[in-house]
């Protein structure tokens, strides 16, 4: 099939070492903690238990309780403590189990961490990583299924990172830890068990560099996080119908790699943006406004956005599924723009 050559070979070649997304994150943490003694971890149940999604397993054994710290359920304060440790020389990686609970920490993240560098005239640095996880799972309902990246995207002074593959997860987390800005690093609960090629070496991925996950000439799909595998699945089905889809994964939303997105749109002249989050006030709308302003003349059709329905996520599984974009929704949107 054409698919094999179309999808990036470095990530699908099974002769290379394969890791799960959660293992790739674990390896990034381990390597960075070895490399830099100021890196430490805080969160609920991350030490002995290794985290709800097993991202921090065995790190307690290797680095001890001073660098792998279990906290009580005190999100606002331990994130604040992360900010304080960060501005005084440490590089904390703080885990908030669900992105829904980051809402308890927003003063520290938005009023404090995001503004500290600016308010100190560019002198104070906040090398803090807030690792968290969002999106729908299997019936986790309204307070454990949200996609809230737009809240952080909206705030100047934060970096927003959303890896879709094990390879990206490792490289981006290492960059996040080394960055001097506060980074909101958003994983997806349905990606942890996905497998992909992850090199053993110490590589990093620059922020603001999109990745073309599949090359194509007819239409550009812009997608991030768990919408990337769904977009790739849609692309495969469309290939069988003779439609050649390019999938662009920005990987970091702030900074956003406008150039790669615009270049792709100028090539294909058709674009569909896919986000799991609800449509209103979402990042897709913002990307659409950038495209229409900077590549309007190239567009052959209005920009399509595939997004979640404007609703809290229902517990009922069937309704949950209908609330967020599925492969078929993406296929239909592609057909509408062509």
């Amino acid at each position, binding site marked *: 099939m054409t698919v094999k050559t179309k999808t990036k070979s470095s990530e699908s070649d099974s002769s290379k070492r394969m890791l799960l997304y959660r293992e790739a994150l674990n390896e990034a943490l381990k390597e960075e903690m070895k490399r830099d003694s100021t890196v430490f971890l805080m969160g*609920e*149940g991350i030490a*002995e*238990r290794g985290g709800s999604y097993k991202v921090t397993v065995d790190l307690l054994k290797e680095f001890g309780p001073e660098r792998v710290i*279990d906290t*009580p*359920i*005190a*999100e*606002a*304060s331990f994130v604040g403590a992360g900010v304080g440790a960060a501005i005084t020389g440490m590089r904390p990686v703080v885990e908030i189990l669900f992105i*829904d*609970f980051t809402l*308890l920490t927003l003063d520290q993240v938005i009023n404090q961490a995001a503004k500290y560098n600016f308010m100190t005239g560019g002198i104070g640095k906040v090398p803090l990583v807030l690792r968290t996880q969002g999106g729908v*799972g*299997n*019936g*986790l*309902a*309204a*307070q*454990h299924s949200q996609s809230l990246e737009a809240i952080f995207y909206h705030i100047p002074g934060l970096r927003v990172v959303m890896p879709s593959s094990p390879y990206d997860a490792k490289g981006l987390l290492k960059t996040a830890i080394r960055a001097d800005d506060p980074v909101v690093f958003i994983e997806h609960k349905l990606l942890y068990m996905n497998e992909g090629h992850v090199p053993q070496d110490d590589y990093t991925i620059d922020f603001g560099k999109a990745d073309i996950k599949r090359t194509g000439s007819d239409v550009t799909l812009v997608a991030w996080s768990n919408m990337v595998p769904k977009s790739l699945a849609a692309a495969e089905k469309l290939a069988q119908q003779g439609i050649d889809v390019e999938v662009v994964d920005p990987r970091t939303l702030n900074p956003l790699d406008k150039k790669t997105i615009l270049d792709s749109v100028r090539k294909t002249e058709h674009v569909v943006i896919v986000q799991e989050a609800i449509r209103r006030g979402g990042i897709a709308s913002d990307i659409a406004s950038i495209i229409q302003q900077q590549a309007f003349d190239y567009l052959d059709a209005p920009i399509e956005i595939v997004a979640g*329905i*404007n*609703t*809290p996520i*229902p*517990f*009922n*599984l*069937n*309704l949950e599924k*209908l609330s967020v974009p599925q492969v078929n929704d993406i296929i239909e949107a592609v057909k509408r723009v062509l």
Partner: protein
Amino acid sequence: MYEKDFLKQLFHKIYTIRIFETECIKLYRQGLIRGYFHPYVGEEATAVGVCSALAEDDYIISTHRGHGHCIARGAQIDRMVAELLGKKTGYCSGLGGSMHIADVQAGNLGANGIVGGGIPIGVGAALGISIRKEKKVVAIFFSDGAANNGVFAESLNLAAIWNLPAIFLLENNHYAVSTPIEQSSRNQNLYERATGYGVHALAVDGNNVIEVFEQTKDARQMCIKGKGPVLIEAKTYRHGGHHVNDPGAYMPKDRLDYFKSKDPVTIAKKHLKEQGKMSESEIEKIEKEVETTMERAIDFAKESPELSFAEFNQMVMGY
């Protein structure tokens, strides 16, 4: 001494919660219930003791471990099973599920997926009562983990300075997921925290339904007289892990055995025999009746329809 009927009622409720949880865990293992499920097994006496001391128009507010509170407050178990199965006939039309189960009409303001999320809401309900000068109270359920969140401290202080009719019901089951309280609090008598805010506080055996009932009754009286709030720490223990998929391997066997030897079901049964003079066969009759009601509840839930996409869409249209 207590009336036989009253003791019977207590046992009936406790046993209903036990059967509800054990049967629903089976449904979960069969894949019929999805998402998070935090069993209340081992803690039944707390919810039943508290709710039995409340008046019909009092309020309760619950937690992620909320099935017991809901039943103790008088919910119908058929509509509860239906909610857990995501059905239209459930208390929240299948939109909320286990973690968000509520029975607003019965004064159960709801479970919560956010640890500590219900505490200030309970204070607000008490504030409304106070402004309207009603003789009602709010029982605010939360556990030891939530007591370490900032909202607990802030809410307790608000209730204190406004003399609100709120009973803070701290269900100390000694764990927040796998974190034992020894690791999250220097002082493990959590009720003593309230004293610092000038709030009357005490601890009870959370596995003894009569003790919980008596203390709640007194606390309610204080609240009604304008001497609230009160904090009651009910010491209890889960019989298993944090949720259905957590084996709870970190729970020391001797501690677990100790609390199992003080099983709320056994204790309530003992009250019934010794004070209520009920025979073994009469008790078995109650048990049988509860089990049959549960079987019917499961059938009802299984046969119930789901909310259609059109109905759902209609509901969220203007959101």
